């Protein structure tokens, strides 16, 4: 059904106006100002082209900060994804204490980072901090985590991972839950069980030679080798489907969910 254009306009206008005033407009202004010599609060400005960008790029501090940001980005993303995926897989693989673990790992996401930064500053305190107390307890050298030039960025990245991993975990948990049952069934047939839901059910590895085709097939289920069509093609291992019960006796066995 066609709605009167005036109604559509009225529905859209508040959002459109605010979008232009507070988001798109300011960005356009910033983009234009970046090509001028405008100083904060100044009434006049001159066109300088790309000079500001050239100056920025030749500034060693800017380059250093860019490199630091990239390193921080890589460390935090890799760390948060790895820990998020690991915890999600472990949490999903069984039902005991699921809720508690989920809450524990997600809590940093819901906390006020500035307040937690104060707590971290105290945890990493060179003399009174918990981290150095623990290090001394196991006989290691205490460190000034936040003021040592070589360590500071890594300390901050560790805090970043601590804050982000829970978010990654929740997204992975949702992804794991949405894996269709038939994929799980197929994986179970191939000998993959709930203990290793992230492990690809994989191709059977076949080290057979053409002369002894069925000698070295390695597969978690009863296995046969067959020659694929064509005289030049290599022999292939083919896993014969076994029942889930049979696969439960394979090396990865734990009860399916």
């Amino acid at each position, binding site marked *: *059904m066609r709605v009167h254009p005036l*109604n*559509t306009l009225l*529905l*859209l206008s*508040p*959002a*459109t106006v*605010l*979008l232009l*005033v*507070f*988001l*798109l*407009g*300011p*960005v356009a*202004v*910033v983009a234009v*100002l970046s090509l001028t010599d405008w100083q*904060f609060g100044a009434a006049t400005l001159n066109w300088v082209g790309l000079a500001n960008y050239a100056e920025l790029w030749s500034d060693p501090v800017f380059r250093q900060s860019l490199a630091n940001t990239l390193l921080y980005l890589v460390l935090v993303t890799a760390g948060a994804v790895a820990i998020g995926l690991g915890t999600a897989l*472990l949490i999903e*693989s069984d039902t*005991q*204490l699921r809720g*508690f*673990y*989920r*809450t*524990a790992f*997600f*809590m940093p996401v*819901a*906390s*006020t980072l*500035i*307040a*937690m930064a*104060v*707590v971290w500053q*105290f*945890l990493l305190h060179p*003399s009174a901090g*918990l981290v150095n*107390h*623990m290090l001394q*307890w196991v006989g290691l050298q205490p460190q000034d985590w936040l003021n040592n030039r070589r360590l500071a960025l890594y300390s901050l990245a560790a805090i970043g991972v*601590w804050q982000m*991993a829970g*978010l990654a975990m*929740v*997204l992975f948990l*949702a*992804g794991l839950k*949405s894996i269709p049952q038939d994929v799980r069934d197929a994986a179970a047939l191939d000998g993959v069980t709930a203990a290793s839901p992230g492990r690809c059910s994989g191709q059977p590895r076949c080290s057979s030679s053409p002369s002894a085709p069925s000698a070295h097939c390695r597969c978690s289920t009863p296995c046969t080798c067959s020659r694929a069509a064509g005289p030049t093609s290599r022999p292939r291992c083919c896993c014969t489907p076994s029942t889930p019960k049979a696969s*439960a006796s394979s*090396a990865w*066995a*734990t*009860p399916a969910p």
Partner: protein
Amino acid sequence: MMLTFSARTFLFRALRHLLLMAGALVFLAPFIWMVLTSLKPVDEVFTRELTLLPTRLALVENYTEALTRVPLLRYLWNGLLVCTAILVLQIVVLLPAAYAFAKLQFRGKTWAWRLVLLALMIPHQATAIPTYVMLHHLGMLNTLSALIVPFSISAFGIFLMRQFFRTVPDDLVHAARLDGMSEFELVWRVMLPTAVPALFAFAIFSVVWHWNDYFWPLLVISSPELATPPLGTMFFRNEEAGINYGPLMAGTVLITAPLLLLFIAAQKRFIEGVTLTGVKG
């Protein structure tokens, strides 16, 4: 590996708990340490030996100091006020627009939608200087409005709700129109009730983001009595000058508590909401 079935299960379970417990302990350590330190008197904070529990409970003096040294309750109230106002404004502005993008045909829709997607990618810091100058000319700097008005529009919210509204059957919209509803009634009386789960997800993002925002309040607020919790934390830290950690930790407990309690109380909705936005957004 000739272990029996149940022994293997047991081993696996034990290993799972071992790994997850160790991880959970590391992730919860800052919270535990924060609470424990907030209970310790000053002479027990800086000790050579590591002591977990306070030998003399300093709960009353630390929390009294935290509440009287700076107007901590005022900060929390400001945070609540700002987050609520932002959320209400955002929903009022974005729901009609999201409905129009999802269910109506109009000229220039493709281009308008591209602008929304473009706005979605604008980082908060990029708009800061022009917005600051604009608020200065309007005489709005150092007011709570300066914390609210610039965030009355959320491109993310329009995007999220439009995606959600597209899944609402057209028949529902047609039926409402046949019943004589205007487009505005339709948005508030038909679309809004169907959108509650998605709005909840959006509300979580909005509240967590604005409650925790430090950058913008730092720019526009200079009066301590207008500070939001993150800015207040820094005022408090500067007051304490990094010496007395007991009251400082008591302050951080009070500032992180509201959001954490909200999260623990509505944990299921919280995680569902994050998932909804993460998977679909």
